[in-house]
């Protein structure tokens, strides 16, 4: 046996004053009495115990010395060498994925059962054993490093909350293995419901201890959900929805669709056992908002019964077209329901706010401030020089990452002629010819941007292609700051790089490049904006997230009163995960819970010494009360 703090044995010197005080104590009270003859009669009856009575004073001293020795020994924190050799390390991977929110027959969630199991594991840890906790909901995260302090582990365990994300058990197990390194007695313990793809293989591994929670249960859930604006109809939108029946029997239920809480449609569903139903539903609305889908079916997992997506509102864009006449261009703009078109013959000096000026075969030396779309320029301006014409230009490169080029392919478009431009300022090439000349470019401009399409529309088939109206729609949406475009709903646990709308970029610039991302439960975090983009995720809650200007609490009231703050960007997040919605536990998994058999002995020796001292105190008190000792 060894001692952590052998210097604490010095406390044993307290025995010296203890003995001194004891010697002083045994000088008894002297009481004069009339006669002792009656007391002699009382005590002479118990004469055989006189030896014990003499010894009991010594016993009292011995009990006190033993009490002191027990406490001193406890302070020295003794431990066995065997404890060091048999020290074990456990890395407990806690599945906090969405399926762990499923209710069991007892009314508890699977995660609650898992935490209860882990609590038992913590209590069964022996003195030198160590344990770490890793949560595996979406992106795995170590919530508590290896420690033998049970209270810390219990506190961290209590802080674990469920997520709406997918399972990250496999990655978490890998992290756990790295955490254990080369430790001989290390084990990775997985506490999960087994509702993920590789569960059976992982459970069969000898290198981990598998602990199952929950039992198989039926569920119906939305596994895919997206809303987008129609590419052809500016006010139309499409809803992609997929609903799965993860039970062993057929079900009939309704699917409610609503926009901002107003019911749009109720779709009756009749799903066979295991059937996955998929459909694309078209609706029209200029207004935007949150489009929600609700499966009207009560099951053990509520998180996948609802899905949401953001439909951007369509706002009229004041477009001023300066042209000497191009039927295709004019009709494309007129056909766009979000365009408020004005035809003029002279270039206006000023543009309306958020307006777009479209110049066709009309290029003044000085472009007006604002957003300008120049189609088929004919002369040089302050932004570019004209270096002749390009005959039969072939498209070589397209910037597919740009929102301006979304859903556009120009490599098979016949363009007999284009103007060769040499920009005088920094620019971004969106479409480039084989010769390296820009065929579609973006140039930053005062209070806006300039898009230049130096292609002759009168020749070639570009106006006849679907790419042409899409190109104009993208351009108008881009000028409007993404207004009216698709904001794709994210799946819980996903990470995505978002293009930040210009108004939020400006807001971020005023706050050290940061924006506030608010979760559905009103918790928030700061997001850094870099080059007009920001990375969000992994999102661990299903619902509507808000990306907004980071306004402090003290400023919020003032901002609300002025109602002039920057509009936020809403991001929808849904569970939409087949594995998480399927609550049926694979039958091939056999639960193993060896760690729960760690048994008695999870306390240090000093703990038992203190208990013994406490019991000794009780015994001494009892003996004292009965006058067996003094």
């Amino acid at each position, binding site marked *: 046996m060894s001692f952590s703090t052998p210097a604490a044995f010095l406390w044993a010197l307290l025995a010296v004053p203890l003995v001194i005080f004891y010697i002083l104590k045994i000088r008894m009270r002297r*009481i004069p009495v*009339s006669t002792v003859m009656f007391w002699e009669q009382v005590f002479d009856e118990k004469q055989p115990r006189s030896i014990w009575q003499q010894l009991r004073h010594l016993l009292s001293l011995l009990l006190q010395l033993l009490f002191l020795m027990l406490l001193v020994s406890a302070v020295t924190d003794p431990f066995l060498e065997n404890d060091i050799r048999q020290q074990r390390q456990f890395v407990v991977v806690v599945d906090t994925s969405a399926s762990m929110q499923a209710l069991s027959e007892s009314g508890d969630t699977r995660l609650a059962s898992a935490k209860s199991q882990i609590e038992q594991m913590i209590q069964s840890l022996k003195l030198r054993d160590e344990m770490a906790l890793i949560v595996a909901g979406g992106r795995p995260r170590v919530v508590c490093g290896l420690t033998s302090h049970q209270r810390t582990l219990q506190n961290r365990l209590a802080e674990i909350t469920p997520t709406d994300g997918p399972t990250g058990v496999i990655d978490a197990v890998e992290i756990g293995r790295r955490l254990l390194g080369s430790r001989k007695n290390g084990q990775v313990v997985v506490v999960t419901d087994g509702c993920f793809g590789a569960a059976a293989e992982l459970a069969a591994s000898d290198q981990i201890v598998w602990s199952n929670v929950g039992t198989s249960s039926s569920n119906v859930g939305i596994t895919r959900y997206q809303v987008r604006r129609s590419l052809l109809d500016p006010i139309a939108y499409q809803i992609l929805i997929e609903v799965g029946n993860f039970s062993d029997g057929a079900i009939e239920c309704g699917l409610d669709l609503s926009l901002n809480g107003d019911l749009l449609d109720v779709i009756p569903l009749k799903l066979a056992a295991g059937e996955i139903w998929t459909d694309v539903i078209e609706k029209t609305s200029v207004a935007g908002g949150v489009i929600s889908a609700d499966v009207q079916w009560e099951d053990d997992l509520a998180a996948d019964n609802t899905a949401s997506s953001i439909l951007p509102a369509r706002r009229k864009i004041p477009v001023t077209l300066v042209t000497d006449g191009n039927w295709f261009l004019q009709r494309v703009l007129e056909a766009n329901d979000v365009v408020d078109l004005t035809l003029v013959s002279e270039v206006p000096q000023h543009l309306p706010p958020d307006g777009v000026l479209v110049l066709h075969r009309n290029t003044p030396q000085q472009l007006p401030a604002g957003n300008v779309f120049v189609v088929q320029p004919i002369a040089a301006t302050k932004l570019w020089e004209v270096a002749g014409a390009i005959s039969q230009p072939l498209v070589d490169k397209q910037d597919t990452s740009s929102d301006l080029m979304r859903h556009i392919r120009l490599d098979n478009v016949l363009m007999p002629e284009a103007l060769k431009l040499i920009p005088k300022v920094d620019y971004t090439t969106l479409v480039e010819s084989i010769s390296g000349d820009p065929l579609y470019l973006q140039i930053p401009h005062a209070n806006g941007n300039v898009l230049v399409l130096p292609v002759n529309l009168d020749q070639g088939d570009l106006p006849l292609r679907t790419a042409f109206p899409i190109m104009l729609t993208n351009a108008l949406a881009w000028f409007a700051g993404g207004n009216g475009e698709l904001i794709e709903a994210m799946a819980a646990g996903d990470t995505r790089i978002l293009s930040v709308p210009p108004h939020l970029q400006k807001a971020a610039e005023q706050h050290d490049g940061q924006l506030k991302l608010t979760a559905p439960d009103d918790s928030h975090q700061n997001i850094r904006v870099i080059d007009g983009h920001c990375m969000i995720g992994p999102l661990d809650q299903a619902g509507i997230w808000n990306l907004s200007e980071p306004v402090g609490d003290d400023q919020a009231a003032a901002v609300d009163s002025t109602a002039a703050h920057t509009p936020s960007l809403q991001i929808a997040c849904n569970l939409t995960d087949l594995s998480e919605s399927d609550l049926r536990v694979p039958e091939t998994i056999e639960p193993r819970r060896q760690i729960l058999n760690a048994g008695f002995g999870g306390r240090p020796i000093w703990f038992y010494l203190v208990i013994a001292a406490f019991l000794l105190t009780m015994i001494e008190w009892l003996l004292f009360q009965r006058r067996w000792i003094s």
Partner: protein
Amino acid sequence: MPLFDNDFLTRLEYLSIVSRKVFRGQLMAQRRTKQMGGGIEFADHRQYTPGDDFRYLDWNLYARHDELLLKRFQEEEDLHVYLLLDCSRSMSTGKPPKFDLARQVTAALAYIALADLDRVSVYAFADGVLNHFPLTRGKARILSLMQFLESLQADGDATNMTQLAGEFVIRAPRRGLALVLSDLYDPGGFRNGLDVLRHHKYETHVVQFHHSAEVEPKMLGDVELQDVETGDFRKITVTEKHLANYRQVFQTFLTSVTEYCSAYGLGCTITDTDVTFDKLVLGMMRAAGTK
């Protein structure tokens, strides 16, 4: 505070008056002694034995029954009252000390006796007779007697009733009423001494004094008891169980005193120090009157 103050004397006089009114003929000189002698009041007969005075033969009975019987007459004489006061150190214990009450009772009884023209003597004793107030008569002697009592100290050695009785019967050959005022804490036992008095035909009355701490001791734990009479020490550890046993032993002692007196026709009064002397004396008179 003086033992016999004006209040004491006032109450004493009151006690004397009450005793004469209520208990006339039942106390002291008013009572016939049980001595057989040459009085004029017939008492009973007994068998004639050779040597008896022929003058007391009942010839009428001899004539009728042909049996020699001797007439006996109750002798009338002055009653001798002996007050035997325990002055051992055990009498000094208690609050107030037993000795104070015992002296007050002694004075009261002596006053009543003197008032009835009886002869009174006081013997202070411990392991023997320490001091004595000789036989005296007349109410006027009460002050001298009180001075004698006030001069006594409870500093004698251990009570020895046998030694007391032996010395007493030698010093007081004239039989009479012997009142023993003591706690009776005689290591050798109180019976031998009382037996001697009884055998010498003294009409004995025992007054046992004790105080509440002797009946219900409060001590617990380790204590060293000191016997105030012998000076002996005894180290004991007192538990509740021991206290219960002690109470039982002490009660047995008091019962033994009562039973002894009852068995041999002795007067007996057992009292603690919480009562006043006049109540105690009245109680004694009532008890004597009911016999």
